[in-house]
């Protein structure tokens, strides 16, 4: 990563803040810093928008498509869990993050495929319909970036440095 240049030409105060601390050991949180902050911010936006959308769908027209709208609510929950777990330190939260991001990836692929190949059964929009096309395909890209990030900052690195 290009964060490892403590005395860079860029004179901005605090530009390296947190990076050194984050690298100092297995107990320090290495996930909610640097690019991880961007990831958490995007997950937070999706948690909010998916929650609002699912809440709206369930409150106003739940009987139209209960399965699709429950799926929306489930997606919102997954985004919320991912947001919180990415921001927390420790190996338990790391596992929660991996689980949430994996569920998200499976969800977007399965629901995305179903919405294309079985559009009669899935006519109602969810965040994951058409691989998240309504959200600029970010729901499809986000879990991949999340897994890459989690792999690069996996807890075993802090102990063995392999």
């Amino acid at each position, binding site marked *: 990563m*290009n*964060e490892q240049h403590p005395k*860079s030409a*860029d004179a*901005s*105060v*605090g*530009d*390296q*803040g*947190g*990076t050194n601390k984050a690298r100092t050991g297995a107990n320090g949180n290495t996930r909610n*810093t*640097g*690019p*991880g*902050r*961007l990831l958490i*911010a*995007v997950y937070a*936006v999706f948690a*909010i*928008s998916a929650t*609002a959308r699912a809440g*709206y769908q369930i409150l*106003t027209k739940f009987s139209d498509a209960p399965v699709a709208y429950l799926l929306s609510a489930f997606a919102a929950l997954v985004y919320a869990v991912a947001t919180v777990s990415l921001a927390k330190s420790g190996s338990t939260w790391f596992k929660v993050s991996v689980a949430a991001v994996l569920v998200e990836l499976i969800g977007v692929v399965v629901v995305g495929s179903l919405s294309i190949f079985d559009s009669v059964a899935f006519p109602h929009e969810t965040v994951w319909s058409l691989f998240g096309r309504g959200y600029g395909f970010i729901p499809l890209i986000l879990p991949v970036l999340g897994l890459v990030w989690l792999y690069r900052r996996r807890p075993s690195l802090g102990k063995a440095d392999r």
Partner: protein
Amino acid sequence: MDAFFYIILAVGLLSTVICLAAGIMKKAPNDATILSVAAVEVALVVYLVGSIIRVIAGETIAGEAWEFWGYLVTAMLLPPAAVYWSILERTRWSNFVLAAVGVTALVMAARMNQIWY
């Protein structure tokens, strides 16, 4: 699409470009990026005040009114939240967080326009 949308389109895109450029140039959040996000907030306040005046003047919202106001209030929470998040850790990555505000506000303004008309 009305003038409110085009104001947010212009301000939002400008803010996103400024913040992306700063992030790519490995700068920490500075006056330019934070003020550009503040400008997005100002544009949203203009939308809010304008919408209140239009409702008082007798215009009706075609879609669900509470959905429109929900979008507007949520959009107005984004710039302060992103600025807060970015100054907690002043690295280049925080500029990418700030960059997300402009496009998000833009998408939400487009949706608000759809609901209104």
